[in-house]
């Protein structure tokens, strides 16, 4: 007990411990991967997955804020990534000749994030007023709408400015111009300016934003509204505003993640961000534990990497994937396994002190 008291506040308090774990985890992984990469010990497959993993982590953290903390189901997180991705591709394509890579990446991500947040808020205002799982239904529909819209959009840029057409491609460009959006083919010829470092920075920024919100006055109000709507109203919490805040930040993070994702590939089709991707993100969140950002990160990393790393196993690939899914669920959500790990950990640490 006396040991516990000596610990500084940020170590003894549970909420600070979670935060500390998150940031040290990200930092250590970043350093290890950078070392491996610079010494040439990282396979090209693994290297190519670094940026996407960061993107999925950020989108999943955002989704966990909405599903785990705010308690509103969202079945269209991928389409907020889509909004971010394609707007970022357009911004970056337009600025390609005039702005250097790094600031261009930052500007594109900010635009993608803001646009996704605007869409989130526009959807959220009417829907979050209703009690029940209406957000799930509406985000599901929104995902389909966004996909169809982008699949039918043609946008080109040349010296005369932007040219836009919808459904039929009748954009004609002066030689030297280029297509930014190409209907079902999506974005082609995108300059790849995303980097792993940018991905890690985005993860850290997302963590800072989400943790600061979670442990603020507004964060407690968000959880209160989730736990008991009537009681939350009775203490004077504005339910709609506070849920909108969580949903807006969630969409905003998905938008930024999508932007980074979009600028990581030279071609990107709208079908990439379909319903399946939204469900996968939800799987990362649920397996990692609702409201548990560290769990979300770990689940995302494992579940994005695993199918790729198992490609050589062919027939056994999905079997192993399924077993891992079950194991993660046990590890993060099962009380029995959790207490067992805690006990083992305690025994280990007391043993060490005894000597």
């Amino acid at each position, binding site marked *: 007990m006396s040991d516990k008291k000596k610990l500084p506040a940020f170590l003894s308090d549970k909420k600070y411990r979670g935060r500390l774990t998150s940031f040290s985890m990200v930092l250590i992984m970043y350093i290890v991967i950078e070392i491996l990469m610079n010494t040439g010990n990282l396979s090209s497959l693994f290297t190519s997955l670094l940026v996407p993993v960061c993107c999925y982590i950020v989108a999943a953290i955002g989704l966990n804020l909405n599903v785990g903390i705010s308690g509103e189901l969202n079945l269209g997180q991928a389409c907020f990534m889509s909004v971010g991705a394609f707007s970022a591709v357009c911004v970056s394509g337009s600025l390609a000749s005039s702005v250097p890579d790094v600031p261009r990446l930052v500007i594109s991500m900010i635009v993608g994030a803001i646009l996704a947040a605007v869409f989130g808020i526009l959807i959220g205002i009417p829907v979050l007023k209703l009690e029940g799982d209406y957000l799930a239904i509406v985000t599901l529909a929104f995902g389909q709408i966004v996909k169809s819209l982008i699949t039918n959009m043609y946008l080109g840029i040349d010296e005369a400015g932007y040219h836009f057409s919808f459904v039929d491609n009748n954009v004609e460009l002066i030689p030297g111009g280029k297509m930014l959006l190409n209907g079902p083919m999506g974005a082609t010829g995108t300059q790849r300016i995303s980097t792993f470092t940018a991905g890690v920075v985005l993860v850290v920024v997302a963590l800072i934003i989400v943790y600061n919100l979670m442990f603020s006055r507004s964060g407690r109000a968000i*959880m209160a509204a989730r*736990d*008991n709507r009537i*009681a*939350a109203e*009775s203490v004077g919490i504005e339910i709609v505003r506070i849920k909108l805040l969580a949903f807006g930040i969630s969409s905003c993070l998905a938008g930024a993640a999508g932007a980074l994702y979009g600028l990581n590939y030279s071609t990107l089709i709208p079908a990439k961000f379909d319903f399946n991707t939204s469900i996968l993100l939800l799987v990362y969140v649920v397996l990692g534990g609702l409201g548990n950002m560290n769990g979300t990160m770990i689940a995302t990393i494992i579940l994005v990497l695993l199918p790729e790393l198992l490609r050589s196993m062919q027939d056994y690939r999905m079997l192993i994937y399924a077993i891992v899914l079950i194991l993660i669920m046990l590890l993060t959500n099962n009380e029995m396994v959790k207490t067992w790990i805690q006990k083992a950990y305690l025994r280990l640490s007391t043993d060490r002190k005894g000597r």
Partner: protein
Amino acid sequence: MLKITDLKVSYGMIEAIKGISFEVGDGEIVTLIGANGAGKTTTMHAISGLLKPAGGGIMLGDTELTKIPSHRIVSMGLAQVPEGRRVFALQTVEENLTLGAYTRKDKAGIAGSMEKVFELFPRLKERRKQMAGTLSGGEQQMLAMGRALMAEPSILLLDEPSMGLSPLLVSEIFHIIVEINKNGTTILLVEQNAKRALAIADRAYVLETGLITLSGTGEELANDERVKKAYLGG
């Protein structure tokens, strides 16, 4: 302090409150008694802004409340303890109480209010770090009351605080209600436990399927034959 005139509340086509009028004076304990489904909770929700009335007026001092959203009503000095021990189960006792002061900004004042709540409910102080969902039923009721007091209301609305509690705890809760009132908070109490409620009330109203059928001082109603027959078991 609180004046309700011809209040009507409907759920869709069903009219749950059919035009009731009553008053709560400064410093009083006023109780509204009635059977299940009489419309007691509906009345409370209408006053605190959780439900929009279909007609009538609700005056708090000089302010008409019917047009004001619920989150602003709390900061005007009217707090509600909702029916059924609605605590924030996944947050600690202390966090629940802090949320009670959600509309306040004065940190020192909030800390002072918390001390006052702990004086009134010493049991909450012992359990300040405990998750609210793991408290006993009686403790959860105390927490819900303490949380409402954190807003430092001038009038407190209590919806069936004795529901589902043992006789001993019911006595304790009623004792505390009187205590809160002595400290200067006006009280509007909704109860099915008519005997206890009438014993501490300055004035009382009987609500029957959306209409007020009787009113008087607590003592008058406790001795009224009709009340005795319908609510006091004989």
